[in-house]
């Protein structure tokens, strides 16, 4: 198992937001966490990424306990997290943003080539300041910066945030081609059809707890999921 989360609880200022979360991601697998706004998806992702110290439970990467590691150490161990707000370096060029993804090393040529293959639109914009890009392009830089680290696990929080439907679809197509290259992905997304289009497995998070788990096919057929997330009566 690459990522193993067991009985995890996390929250803010003593308030529990997610609890009792058990979740697994195998190497090469694409796993979706679906749930509505406020279900706790971001809190869960932040706790795994080390941005939020879990209140209870355990997070391990390839068997190594990393529950209380700070974010920079989690990143160094090969977990790249792309938050919904992206957190690019706005006054730096696209190129410098990408290069920093490999910190403290120099970026590998293959890693940069992969980024340009997945996001050809970035190539002509390498010298542009990241802060001047459109939302869709910034999302590409954020994912690109994470890819340059050649992560063992790529975590994305709401990649569709702030994107027009067409661009959101493009973003998930890009994730699909990463999947085709064997990348392990953990994606939190409230647009359930998009998430299920790329996932091998999905977890449904409701009020901070995992209520369902299954393949896209199983989740798709589940009457609860259909009513709550797919707009089917």
């Amino acid at each position: 198992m690459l990522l193993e989360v067991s009985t995890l609880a996390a929250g803010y200022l003593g308030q529990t937001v997610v609890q009792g979360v058990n979740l697994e991601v195998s190497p090469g697998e694409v796993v979706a966490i679906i749930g509505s706004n406020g279900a706790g998806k971001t809190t869960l992702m932040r706790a795994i990424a080390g941005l939020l110290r879990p209140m209870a439970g355990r997070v391990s990467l390839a068997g190594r306990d990393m529950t209380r590691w700070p974010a920079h150490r989690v990143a160094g161990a090969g977990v790249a997290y792309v938050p919904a707000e992206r957190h690019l370096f706005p006054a730096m060029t696209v190129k410098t943003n990408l290069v920093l993804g490999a910190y403290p090393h120099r970026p590998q040529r293959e890693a940069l080539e992969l980024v340009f293959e997945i996001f050809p639109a970035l190539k002509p914009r390498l010298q542009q300041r990241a802060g001047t890009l459109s939302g869709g392009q910034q999302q590409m830089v954020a994912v690109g910066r994470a890819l340059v680290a050649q992560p063992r696990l790529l975590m994305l929080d709401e990649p569709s945030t702030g994107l027009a439907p067409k661009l959101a679809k493009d973003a998930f197509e890009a994730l699909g081609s990463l999947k085709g290259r064997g990348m392990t992905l953990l994606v939190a997304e409230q647009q359930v059809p998009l998430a299920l289009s790329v996932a091998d497995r999905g977890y449904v998070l409701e009020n901070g707890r995992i209520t369902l788990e299954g393949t896209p096919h199983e989740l798709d057929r589940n009457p609860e999921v259909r009513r709550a997330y797919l707009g089917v009566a």
Partner: protein
Amino acid sequence: MKAVILDGIILGLGFGLLGVGMTLVYGLGGVLNLAYGEFAVLAAIVVAQAISGGMPTVLAAVLGILAAATAGVLLDLSLMRPVYRQSTGHRVLLGLMLTLGLAFVIEGVLTWRDPLGGLTISIGGKPISILGVPIAVGSVWAALITLAVGVVLLVFFAATTFGRGVRSVIQDELGARLVGISPSLVRTVIFGLSGALAGLVAVTQSMTSPLTVSGGFNLTVYALIVSVVGGLGSVAGAFLAGILLGIVDDVSARYIGSYISDIVLLGAAALTILVRPRGLFGS
């Protein structure tokens, strides 16, 4: 007039270097180090004592710079720990209170131990003519050292991995953590660099005019002004602002009176906040 401007540029280079150490620390998390000028004084006293103890001047200068760098690192590892645990607003206030307190302590101790202490490094030789203006040898040396260090700093922050890492923390701390950078480690290193720069400014300044035990507060104020005008967190901005302010300072001191020049500089900082709050180069 030419002489005044040239003098101003030389003065301003020193302002710029001084500003770098203040502006980087501020950019990395909102702390204005009010003990900054006292680090320079500390270095000056260490250098003066070492020289009077028989140490060669260059070695003494290195020792003084190291002492100030150590003071910077120790400040970060001690008083700054609770500061960086606060959220932004409280962080600024707590940082101001603690560093102001430290400034009083350092100044108090130095004044008590060495009330007449100060540093003058005199470099002999006939004034060198630059563009027809005679400039004291000490000033020329001070300006050259400052320029060289300024270039090294600019290259360091633009082109090295760690330098880019520092800028990334200034621009988006969370983003920096996500690419594997430890903001607290970066801050410790930059506090050390900041102390070293204060120490270097003490050395270069003492080549043109004495730096005394009571001179720390003025240096802190100059560093603050340069940081604000240059743009918080910007090395190039600090140098440009330093040179501009050096010229303004010298011109106003010459044509109006030296009593007015500090007020003119503070006015320039206030005007910057009103007209261009991010400063010349701030992001």
